[in-house]
């Protein structure tokens, strides 16, 4: 190639870089062979402790669940994972159709009208929903009702400072929030009431009442939901929420130390032009064949620049594909089975823990699906004892909420078999 350009070295092509900027050599090690590279990575991976699926009783937004082999078999197809964003629809129908299916599945699960193609994670999804509500209502504060995931709240606060709106939070007395507790904070300056269902402690909120309270104040209701729980719990569309968001890691993704996971956002039809990120729509070619395209791009940064609804460009398409394969594999019955088994096991664990000395449900009146808070006398000592026998125990939440010092949130899924639950109980009873 040099010869065809009529040059002998690369230098003429770099001549416009000021000489004083030219680097002699990067101060990095020499390159490694594949074998050596993998040896180094195995060494690093080996310095981490991996808890067994069945002995992991910790959730807090990231869960160990059964991942059908079909999921990685599809997401590791290089036709999917090495493709670019489908700007040229004729050569990207596989991606576009899969995304259209994803949008439909999220809309079905949440009982909302439309879903976008994905966001980064549950936290940024909450923040994007809040920003939508601020623009839609022309009001500049959002009210977080109850125990929202503390990291979601932190991200919401970061976004709010940048996007010039305010975040208020009302924590409940009894684990779940009574709309009456919102009191004067919910006035006609509030753009959205944001709540998590089940909340960060795993407890089930009165989503209908919170939604109604939001609407009475002229605010939007934003529900942050757990997609697996929606097999059992009333979905946001049924109680009239305006925007449903959440974290989709449980739909076929490994914990991977917190990412990449999957944010989703769905809304009522009236709000669709305020949605951030990609949307796939149906169309036809000249022969009348059905095909799919990226659509409503007039909302997006590459068209609207500083007037865009969001700056999002690259999102989490491959994670959305994992969820699409997962939900295709599970179907409505499989998803319900998973949710039901998790519910049975969690309630069993809760009853049995309550029977041990030194453990009592933190909010015994509140209902839950598969994650629940327990007040533990032994505190942190218990967790290190559990860790010694290979158990990742409940999540200590006092780190974020001082009033919950000494509370552990335990979680069961379809992977915590009865034997594993006995192992946990035995270790707790010691």
């Amino acid at each position, binding site marked *: 190639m040099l010869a065809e350009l009529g040059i002998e070295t690369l230098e003429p092509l770099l001549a416009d870089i000021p000489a004083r900027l030219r680097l002699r050599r990067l101060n990095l090690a020499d390159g490694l062979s594949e074998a050596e590279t*993998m040896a180094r990575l195995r060494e690093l991976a080996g310095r981490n402790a991996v808890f067994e699926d069945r002995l992991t009783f910790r959730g*807090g937004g990231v869960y160990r669940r059964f991942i059908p082999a079909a999921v990685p078999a599809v997401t590791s197809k290089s036709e999917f994972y090495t493709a670019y964003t489908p700007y040229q629809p004729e050569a990207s*129908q596989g991606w576009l159709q899969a995304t259209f299916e994803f949008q439909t599945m999220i809309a079905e699960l949440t009982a909302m009208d439309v879903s976008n193609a994905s966001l980064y994670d549950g936290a940024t999804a909450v923040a994007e929903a809040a920003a939508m509500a601020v623009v839609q209502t022309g009001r500049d504060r959002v009210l977080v009702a109850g125990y929202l995931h503390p990291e979601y709240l932190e991200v919401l606060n970061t976004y709010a400072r940048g996007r010039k709106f305010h975040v208020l939070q009302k924590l409940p007395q009894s684990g779940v929030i009574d709309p009456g507790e919102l009191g004067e904070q919910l006035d006609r300056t509030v753009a959205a009431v944001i709540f998590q269902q089940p909340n960060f402690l795993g407890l089930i909120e009165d989503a209908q009442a919170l939604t109604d309270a939001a609407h009475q104040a002229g605010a939007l209701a934003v529900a942050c939901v757990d997609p697996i729980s929606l097999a059992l719990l009333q979905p946001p569309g049924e109680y009239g929420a305006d925007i449903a968001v959440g974290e989709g890691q449980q739909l076929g993704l490994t914990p991977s130390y*917190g990412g990449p996971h999957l944010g989703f956002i769905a809304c009522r039809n009236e709000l*669709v032009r305020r949605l951030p990120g990609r949307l796939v729509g149906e169309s036809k070619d000249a022969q009348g064949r059905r095909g799919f395209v990226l659509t409503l791009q007039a909302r997006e940064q590459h068209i609207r620049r500083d007037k865009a609804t969001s700056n999002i460009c690259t999102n989490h398409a491959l994670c959305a594909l994992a969820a699409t394969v997962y939900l295709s594999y599970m179907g409505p019955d499989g998803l*319900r089975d998973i949710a039901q088994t998790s519910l*049975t096991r969690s309630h069993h664990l809760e009853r049995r823990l309550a029977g041990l000395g030194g453990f009592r449900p933190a909010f015994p009146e509140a209902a839950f699906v598969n994650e629940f808070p327990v007040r533990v006398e032994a505190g942190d000592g218990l967790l290190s004892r559990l860790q010694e026998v290979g158990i990742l125990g409940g999540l200590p939440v006092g780190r974020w909420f001082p009033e919950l010092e000494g509370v552990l949130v335990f979680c069961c899924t379809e992977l915590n078999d009865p034997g594993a639950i006995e192992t946990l109980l035995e270790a707790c009873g010691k």
Partner: protein
Amino acid sequence: MTEPLAFEKSRESLPGPRLPAAGLPGVEPAQVIPRARLRRSRPHLPRLSEPEVMRHFTRLAAMNYSISKNFYPLGSCTMKYNPVTNEAAASLPGFAYLHPYQPEESVQGALELMWDLERALCEIVGVDRMCLQPAAGAHGEWTGLRMIQAFHEGRGEDRSEVIVPDSAHGTNPASAALCGFKVVEVRSDAGGRVSLPDLESKLSPRTAALMLTNPNTLGLFEKEILEVADLVHAVGAKLYYDGANLNALMGICRPGDMGFDVIHLNLHKTFTTPHGGGGPGAGPVGVMKDLEQFLPRPTLERENGHFKLDFERPLSIGRVRSFYGNFGMLVRALTYILAMGADGLSQASEDAVLSANYLRARLEGALDFPHEGPCKHEFVASARNLTAQGIHATDLAKGLLERGFYAPTIYFPLIVPEAVMVEPTETESKATLDAFTEAVLEIVQLAQTDPERLRAEPTSLPVGRLDEVAAARHPVLRWRPPAQD
């Protein structure tokens, strides 16, 4: 070839998959959850057997173009080969199955990996610290601008404007606007670089930052970058580096040395983590010392050989996403850096520049070139020489799809009419670039001899050109179950 939707293939009589039974006395939802909180309708999810699922997605995969199949000349997207070693590394159980709330002492390997990556990226771009949290480039831009905003606010200065070139990526003005900044555009000069006189006229005590890509989106090195940096710093503003085009510069020169204060990178471009059909990516942000205290929480610190997450950062702009970023992508990026080493990375950038200049030379005469070379890792041509025949950049793009290539980025940057933006990357061989050239030449020829035929392409793909206007006017964004009577 078309494939029905998963919903259309659903068989209502099919039972669900076999899953673990509870193995305990069953608890009915209605026993433990108030009835009003329970779901009334069943979601319409497809009911498919595993072979049907696999076949469905395998067929969809076959309807996709990908870098593993052939060349992606997408300008500014840096679609280079994604080494499979990266994938093997990320799926090691010691990475893939870590819970983000495991005790710190049980994840020392993961933290060390993030530490090593931060150090390597700092060295490559010439900054003091790096935050690995942002999930994508635009997320990184926003994070960087928030830090700049916090910096100025901390000095009691109210700076309300961010300057971006007219050739900038769309995310730049969008990110600035979402931080509440007013976006001020600076013109490119006839040579395709930032016009210094225009920049001077736009800089003021109101300026918070100038966002710049270097090489810029025309693929040209901003050769007056040191003067630009001096002008920006003279009014107390910060210089922001959009790292989308870093692939031209690794080991050759460093944005930090040019005077940039904040830098974001796209690991899914320069550092070979796969694009995944539109993410997940990773958009780390680097800063110079004076902005370090504003980095998102938590930062990663090392004390006596022990790695720890530091949440006590009172001036931090806060978190920008949950947990510690797209960790799986960080594993892939470090894998690439370890395999390449110092010399491998410079070689990659040198080869990327050579490939782009070679391809540019081959295409001269076939397309218009509004700006003089040499280019760096990409170049922008114009298809305006074909418009007399009623052929546009879109037709060139579709013609390339027909001939087994992906299309270049078209109609961007906005300052070039009928723009055709090509970035070949270092991982394409001369043979591939030659074959691509032949395809372009054939299309240009066809534009003269049979433009009608060209306008009807592609004909050999699963679908022909789709009606995007109708799709936007009457959006159908989901499948709906057939109405039941």
